[in-house]
């Protein structure tokens, strides 16, 4: 009976998410206690960054981190991401790329059939250009999210849709041979919307759309134990 209202609330959250900006990372619905999810994510980040004064520049990064999420209690899920790619391509250039990150997400409230969670995620990335004409980038990001989650049956599976506002802070530090300098994001408030489809055989498909000046996406294929 309350489902239409809940759906309307979720739709509102999604709308808020789409008109705002964010850069949230390993997020998703809370996992049951003692459940481990291991997967691989394709992620595109595209942000407008600024060096104190001057025109913002659009900065872009693709990576493929391995993701781990674990339900430490029924109300909290920790996450971790790792990647290392000695043969990555960025702007058509050969790049050695690393990412290390971790986060936690916890239940805030359970109104009706929904769950409201909040989470924080920190990550650090490195892009090393083998061409000496390009600057290496040391990347740091911290994201806070407030997510509304709603679960419903689809076929023989339970799908979860989720979304909400985010505060996302990103620093890109250019290294030699460029003049050293930190580029930071102009905008830190944003939104994210996503869907998670666990199958009965343990496989989990998850996709999310992030809006940070321009649309970004994350696609995740995982196995849930």
């Amino acid at each position, binding site marked *: 009976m309350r489902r239409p209202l809940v759906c309307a609330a979720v739709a509102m959250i999604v709308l808020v998410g789409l008109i705002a900006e964010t850069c949230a990372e390993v997020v998703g619905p809370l996992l049951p206690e*003692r459940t*481990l999810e*291991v*997967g*691989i994510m394709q992620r595109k980040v595209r942000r407008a960054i600024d060096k104190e004064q001057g025109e913002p520049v659009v900065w872009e990064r693709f990576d*493929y*981190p*391995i993701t*781990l999420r*674990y339900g*430490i209690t029924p109300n909290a899920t920790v996450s*971790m991401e*790792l*990647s*290392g*790619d*000695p043969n990555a391509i960025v702007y058509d250039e*050969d790049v*050695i790329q*690393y990412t*290390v990150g971790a986060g936690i997400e916890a239940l805030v409230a359970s109104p009706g059939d929904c769950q409201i969670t909040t989470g924080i995620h920190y990550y*650090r990335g*490195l892009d*090393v250009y*083998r*061409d*000496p004409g390009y600057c*290496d980038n*040391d990347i740091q990001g911290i994201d806070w999210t407030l997510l509304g989650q709603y679960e419903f049956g689809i076929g023989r599976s339970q799908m979860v849709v989720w979304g909400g506002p985010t505060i996302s802070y990103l620093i890109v530090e250019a*290294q*030699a*041979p460029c003049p050293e300098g930190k580029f930071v994001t102009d905008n830190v408030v944003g939104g994210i919307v996503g869907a998670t489809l666990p199958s009965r*055989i*343990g*496989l989990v498909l998850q996709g999310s759309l992030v809006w940070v000046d321009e649309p970004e996406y994350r696609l995740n*294929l*995982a*196995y849930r*134990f």
Partner: protein
Amino acid sequence: MRKPHLFLFAVILVATAFASAARAQVIAPLLEKNAVEGGYAYKWFDRTVPAPVDRAEWEVASLFARFGVLDWLTLTAEGGLWGIEYGDAPGQSYTRWVIGGAASARLYRAKRWNVTATLTYNEVYDHDNSPYRFDKRTRGWNVGVLAGTSFAFSGQHVDLWAGPMFVDDLIERYAWGIDDPLAIEPENSFGVAVGTYAVLFNYVSGFAYVLYADEPQVRVGVALRSRGGGE
């Protein structure tokens, strides 16, 4: 019940292995199902390599998490980010990136004895923050079949294990402006590992083992753990 579907997980594992490098070098006995460990590990690396380098020695620390996902399968993830100093040239400062992971599966169990297969990967990238850009990268695969036994000692749980290991290390040196790194590989790829693991008062664990390949290499670690059990 989920065992029939584990091939799907294996597919993901293989896919991730090809798509991204992220596996570890923490070797310890299997955890109970649903048990979790989080801790700190330290490794001394020492290999004989071809001239002119002759010998490669370094140390690395990392944080790790181990998950007993099934009664017979334990997964490990490892990572770290540290600031380190090398004295190669004045003004150099390095950031060390560590990533890794492992999968260990029980092949056989009889009373207190067991045989376990283990596959581990570890990658260390030392990024030179100075204009020299003299970066260093090392990656290592370890594959082994380990025989072990468990017993109680002074009321605490202790494991001892040993077995042959395939050890594949690659050391790379990047110089500024050169796309192809200088790659160094030890000629010997086989070794043996002997180790111990103990659980103290149910919630603290520690491991130590020696991997002998050309030279003895020691790894130690300490962790907090949760009990396993449940569905």
